[in-house]
């Protein structure tokens, strides 16, 4: 406990590995060099194969110099963004409710929330999409394509987010609840005022990282013909007969988007301090 809270923050790397000595440093250098050679060789093979099969021919790449190509891809990108964001907001809301139900201490409610959470967590997103795409319309409910992709993606993510949030709740030391109860708060009050706010701070980075999964799930939009980035990329492929180059560009855009999301998570973890090892007030008896 003498450890000052500020000096107690150290990175995961420091926590897991000791400082390498001279021999280890040498081994790391050799390993790095070998890895670099292998990666370079692989790259050469890939580029050579592309060249050999004619994938580097101008016909497959020139249409990327046209503004219309990018406008079309960008409209798909906006589609991906709007589905992702809407699904994320719904998933966080639903996940929060499921988590609250699960920790409510009311047995039947907790059981129902547990079943719902496990169901959405366990069922593949594609199956949920088929449900909204093929089953729901049979009951006369005609959803727009946007919702046929957004709703199932949101439901699938809600199960995962409920678990992430619950992990956050479990990470709040028991003493926090005890202190709240000891000043006369009812258990529900203690949970909402003391435990949940801290839990959310703990898991904000994980919640944001989880958005990457949501973004990847939205690529299933082609099933319902919603024009997201990948769907529009497929249209380009049919038009220009340029499969590899188009998928390559689409992949780069997805990677950049998800990298941005991850950076957001890193930023959030710095802001909330949840990334650091800070157990000053949490030592248990």
């Amino acid at each position, binding site marked *: 406990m003498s450890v000052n809270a500020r000096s107690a923050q150290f990175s995961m790397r420091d926590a897991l590995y000791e400082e390498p000595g001279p021999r280890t440093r040498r081994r790391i250098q050799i390993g790095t060099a070998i890895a670099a050679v292998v990666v370079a060789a692989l790259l050469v093979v890939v580029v050579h194969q592309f060249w050999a099969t004619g994938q580097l021919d101008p016909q497959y790449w020139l249409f990327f110099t046209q503004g219309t190509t990018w406008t079309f891809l960008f409209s798909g990108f906006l589609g991906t963004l709007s589905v992702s964001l809407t699904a994320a907001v719904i998933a966080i809301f639903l996940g929060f409710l499921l988590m609250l139900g699960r920790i409510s201490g009311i047995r039947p409610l907790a059981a129902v929330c547990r079943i719902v959470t496990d169901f959405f967590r366990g069922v593949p997103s594609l199956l949920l999409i088929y449900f909204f795409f093929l089953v729901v319309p049979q009951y006369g409910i005609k959803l727009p394509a946007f919702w046929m992709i957004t709703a199932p993606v949101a439901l699938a993510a809600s199960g995962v987010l409920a678990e992430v949030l619950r992990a956050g709740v479990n990470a709040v030391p028991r003493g*926090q609840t005890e*202190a709240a109860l*000891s000043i006369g*708060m009812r258990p529900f009050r203690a949970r909402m005022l003391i435990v949940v706010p801290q839990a959310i701070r703990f898991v904000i980075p994980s919640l944001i990282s989880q958005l990457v999964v949501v973004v990847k799930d939205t690529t299933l939009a082609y099933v319902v013909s919603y024009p997201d980035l990948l769907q529009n990329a497929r249209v380009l492929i049919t038009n220009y007969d340029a499969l590899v180059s188009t998928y390559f560009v689409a992949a780069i855009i997805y990677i950049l988007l998800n990298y941005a999301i991850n950076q957001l998570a890193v930023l959030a973890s710095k802001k909330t301090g949840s990334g650091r090892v800070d157990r000053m*007030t949490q030592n248990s008896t």
Partner: protein
Amino acid sequence: MTTQDTTAPVIELRHVEKSFGDIHVLKDINLAVKTGEVVVVIGPSGSGKSTLCRTINRLESIDSGEILISGKPLPEEGAELAAVRAELGMVFQSFNLFAHMSILRNVTIGPTEVLGMSRADAEREAMELLERVGVADQAEKVPAQLSGGQQQRVAIARSLAMHPKAMLFDEPTSALDPEMINEVLDVMVRLAGQGMTMIVVTHEMSFARRVADRVVFMADGQILEEGAPEEFFENPKTERAREFLDSIRGH
């Protein structure tokens, strides 16, 4: 002190039994604490003294027996239990300040959320309390920015803000660095001097000698001895207590 029945002890335990699985942690505990009395509970670790302390505001339930607060049975749940807890201050070994709130908010949240006091009134009183325990200048910080001793004094202020009729201290100095123990004990000595009813589980024998009206010695889940501090420390009646006192004086 006020209109309440002064003949009934503030806290009374009758034949309290408690087991964790196979471990019998409290065996036929009988204890009565009168208004203004300071009772210090000592004993080897694992003797059940912390559990005893925690049963009084039902952070730990009991298997059988009775706990009476001002003559009335301790409620088992709901608003009634919360109301009794609000009247019993509790100070923990690990401070348990609300980590996401400022020091000031830690002290005002009880009065505003439980007693329905206005934020302004609560803050005025909280500042006085923080002044009293000597951490008023830290009011805007968060708990992690304070030293252990400061955090524990804030925890005491947080309890006092509820105007408790008795306070429970569960090893309040055990998690502190040696140089911080006295600043917390000083606050507790002053509280005792002002007539606060206290049950203190501690290893601080000097505090027990100085402040206790009565010392309760526990071992293996039983109260083996109880009496005035001088008598207990000079002339322990049981072999177990003698061994315990020797072991802590041994160095």
